[in-house]
């Protein structure tokens, strides 16, 4: 059975390897902008959401491009 491309992409195991990277990058970036734990975590959360949205927009654009082509 052929899955729709977005679903197939989400089921590919490689995509889940981004999660540890997302957590590590967000936390380290937050820690370079703040000194206390609570602001670090708040900044890390905002950074993680921003990166997910950014990648999501690119993902949707690529899926749209694939349908269009």
């Amino acid at each position, binding site marked *: 059975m052929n899955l729709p491309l977005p679903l197939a992409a989400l089921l590919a195991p490689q995509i889940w390897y981004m999660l540890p990277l997302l957590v*590590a*990058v967000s936390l*380290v970036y937050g*820690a*370079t*902008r*703040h*000194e206390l734990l609570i*602001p670090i975590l708040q900044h890390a959360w905002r950074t993680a959401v921003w990166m997910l949205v950014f990648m999501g927009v690119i993902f949707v654009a690529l899926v749209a491009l694939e349908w269009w082509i």
Partner: protein
Amino acid sequence: MSNPNTAGEQALEIDLRDPALAGFLAWLWPGLGHFYQRRHAKGMLFMVCILGTYFFGLTLGEGKVVYANWTQEDHRWQYALQLGVGLPAAPAIVQAIAAKRPEGPIGGYFMAPPKPSPRGGNIHDAGQIANTLPEWHKRLNVRFELGTLYTMVAGLLNILAIYDALAGPALSEPVDEKKRPPGEGDDKKKQS
């Protein structure tokens, strides 16, 4: 409106001690520079995040994704970024030197550069291609790329941590001048 948490941070006085030494220690072992500065929580955070990323990548690539090599068929520029984690990536330099000896690398091919591909030999001969770059790519498949990516990102993240040890956090929200207590200095980062 300024965030009360970050506004509170503005009043923090951070003793950077000797920033150059802290920066060197932060490069040598992620988090060590912050421990030297007695910023233990951040030191632990950097150590866990950066070394966790690095060793996860190294494990994914079975210890073969971090190596130093600059030959005609393999320009391993990624090692320059991996070296950002300092000591944990340093064995690759030792292995690169050891690989030039007749005995070969120390203790197998952990962090050692791959053998040059056989020229004119039978590519299907397992003995000929063992520990060559094509064989590593074939066997590890996508894990070779992922391991390389993780270890490179770890090195880049440690550059941010080194900067933090050298200069303190780059506070993003400037304190409101009207709310600043009288007599409070502009720079609260103290060097001893």
